[in-house]
């Protein structure tokens, strides 16, 4: 155990003990790199002591690790076998101005997914098993280490993106994927925001297996393709034909440059260090341009073929008030605590849905001690 006001259990059993014995609210923390949500005060409960890869079978595409395992350790182990997490979680430290070591449990709690989400699914889609400690200190398991499993209710999905409010993750299991031999970016230059979604729709709606589709004012449309060299070059050619009506095409083939570009999209590098609040808005892709116009942002980046809008706006802006009614959800990802106290960081839900969420929290955390109010 660490210093006063901060607990760092070294095992799942100690973690359960810590929750069971908690006298008041707990601030559940992985690496502390994603300070999202309503500010919560309480004793800090760090999961970084419940760490280590417990099983990795490359031939079965399966990895199991303690929730506190650093992302760097997971990524290194996978890279050694030329495999990776399919959903491409970002490193948010630059964007959010945080430090520390991102943990795999924190990634799950945030359901963090990067550009490849559009092809390979979100974190929750690769997550195949969890162990967690509920608000009463019970250790619960769900799912397992196999990728097809419909035994009982899928609490695995429920835990992904629950930001530590239903339980404290102790172990997570994933389906992983091979790293393709090579990759390239097809750039469509000079595409305006209003045409971006249509260009990206043409690409992701093609048979050419686009694994990333993003847009920025500076770069235009960016499309990533991955695979064996001949296949990547073939698909780049086909996409060139398909998209030439949208703008001038350039193909970026240098592996380092491609990787750097998509890392910047993933981590929203363009907003790092810039003043203002950052919002992350999930929408129907063809609605994106209209919604961005209503936002009046200082800067914007589209990912997920237009389905994800990253927006930089003036500090304290209530972005939802600007957008008005829309289909989707807006999350305030970066803002000062007083702004996050005033503006709901998570999208308010319809009454019947909110009642279900509140009901679940009351069951899983009957004392209301796990990151209380963080998602309210």
């Amino acid at each position, binding site marked *: 155990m660490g210093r006063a006001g901060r607990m760092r259990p070294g095992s799942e059993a100690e973690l359960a003990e810590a929750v069971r014995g908690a006298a008041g609210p707990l601030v559940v923390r992985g690496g502390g790199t994603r300070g999202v949500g309503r500010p919560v005060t309480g004793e800090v409960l760090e999961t970084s002591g419940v760490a280590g890869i417990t099983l990795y079978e490359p031939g079965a595409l399966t990895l199991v690790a303690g929730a506190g395992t650093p992302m760097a350790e997971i990524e290194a182990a996978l890279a050694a076998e030329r495999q990776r997490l399919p959903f491409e979680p970002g490193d948010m430290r630059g964007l959010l101005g945080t430090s520390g070591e991102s943990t795999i449990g924190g990634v799950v709690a945030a359901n963090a*997914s990067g550009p490849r989400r559009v092809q390979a699914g979100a974190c929750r889609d690769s997550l195949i098993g969890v162990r967690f400690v509920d608000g009463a200190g019970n250790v619960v398991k769900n799912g397992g280490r196999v990728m097809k499993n419909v035994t009982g209710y899928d609490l695995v999905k429920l835990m992904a993106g629950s930001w530590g409010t239903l339980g404290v993750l102790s172990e997570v299991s994933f389906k992983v994927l091979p790293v393709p031999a090579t990759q390239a970016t097809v750039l469509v230059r000079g595409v305006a925001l209003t045409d971006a979604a249509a260009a990206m729709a043409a690409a992701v709606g093609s048979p050419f297996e686009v694994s990333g589709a993003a847009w920025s004012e500076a770069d235009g449309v960016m499309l990533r393709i991955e695979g064996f060299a001949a296949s990547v070059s073939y698909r780049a050619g086909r996409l060139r034909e398909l998209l030439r009506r949208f703008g001038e095409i350039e193909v970026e083939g240098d592996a380092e440059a491609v990787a750097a570009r998509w890392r910047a999209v993933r981590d929203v590098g363009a907003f790092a260090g810039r003043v203002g609040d950052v919002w992350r808005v999930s929408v129907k892709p063809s609605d994106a341009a209209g919604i961005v116009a209503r936002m009046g942002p200082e800067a914007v980046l589209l990912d997920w073929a237009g389905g994800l809008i990253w927006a930089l706006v003036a500090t304290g802006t209530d972005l939802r008030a600007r957008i008005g009614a829309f289909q989707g959800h807006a999350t305030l990802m970066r803002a000062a605590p007083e702004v996050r106290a005033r503006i709901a960081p998570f999208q308010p839900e319809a009454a019947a849905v909110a009642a279900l969420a509140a009901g679940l929290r009351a069951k899983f955390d009957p004392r209301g001690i796990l990151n209380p109010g963080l998602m309210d």
Partner: protein
Amino acid sequence: MEMPIPNPSILNAKARIVERLRAVLPEDAVIDDIAETRAYECDALSAYRCPPLAAVLPRTTAEVSAVLRVCFEEGVPVVPRGSGTSLAGGALPTADCVILGVSRLNEVLETDYANRFIRVQSGRTNLSVTGAVEADGFFYAPDPSSQLACAIAGNIAMNSGGAHCLKYGVTTNNLLGVVMVMMDGTVVEIGGAHLDAGGLDLLGVICGSEGQLGVVTEATLRILRKPEGARPVLMGFDSNVVAGECVSDIIKAGVLPVAIEFMDRPCIRATEDFAHAGYPDCEALLIVEVEGSDAEIDEQLGVILAIARRHNPVELRESKSEEEAKKIWLGRKSAFGAMGQINDYMCLDGTIPVSALPLVLRRIGEMSREFGLDVGNVFHAGDGNMHPLILYNANKPGDLEKCEAFGAEILKLCVEVGGCLTGEHGVGIEKRDLMGVQFSGVDMEAQLWVKDVFDPKWLLNPAKVFPLAVTAGRRVA
């Protein structure tokens, strides 16, 4: 199979309940004649049958809401039903329940290629979802074997898979949103054409909840552009261990086939006698399929065949034409039919870690001799989902019980090696009493909380998924 004793006060109130249902539905949507309710007495787990109190066939979300409201007020259990193709007894009625069939909710509501989704009513069949978009080059990926008949509602309830999940995932990975009616009649909308949840991922827990949390009436599904082409290869090996190693090496090589199917010798022989696909007589057979343009397929198959050759295959067969490709798939696709020609069979559905395959097949062989029942194995090898088919004679007293006991032992073995009881069929009543093998009391309790929240009176499909003893204190029926 134990089912709850029907509630006599509900049975006695049948006339009133039916009258109230008729008051909120069109004349032809309420079925209470005992001869006609027999049509709903079972699903594809046909060893178990029980006609319901009544069946209703609403056409709209509003009608579903009205039905559920009546049943909620009357305290009548409701068993939702898609097309009745569940192999796990998911739609098995009790005598005191109302069957809510969604078969008349079968419209396509919206097709949107730019945003790659289709919105359908939930009674629409799986294959007809693809049917609605395939002329434009798109498809809906999950493809359970029953796809000609099974409904999207049932797919969502059971989180159905198929042969192509290694690449495309299962239902939950392709479901974007639902309109769902709660037991008290409240209509909720969860998810939509956008990605991921804004708050808790309720959609994730609704999918696969076996009709116990609500009745889904509309679904927004992701559709994908069809690949340019697909082609299978067939490989025969003289050992299960070697076939398993070959699968593992293919996966490690960075190729992601769209399907890797495995058949063992008993299954190969049965299908050969039945379908004459020209399969080699060997210990283990793999069918590996990849997608892309012709050149891309050649490139991937080149890698795969090189790996296969390193494992000394007894046969390697490529397909040079559509016809040859069909012939490779022919035996696999007729495997269930072939086994059915020999005898009645029970199809299991456990999943195992791929690395445990040789051990599990050996143990199944040993148990087959102990129980004196033959078994053939068909297997989605890429994802570890096994389908052992145990042969038995339904007309021979005691054979079904023996078969069920054998099946239970296989499923326990799946859990023991790190797998699970069911990979895509669901628990239903079939595996209900084995849940304790995989889950502790605490693990199950956490799942029951979800039902407590969604259906506090425990009226929706109450006797399924969890052992009756575990849910006894919660169920009123």
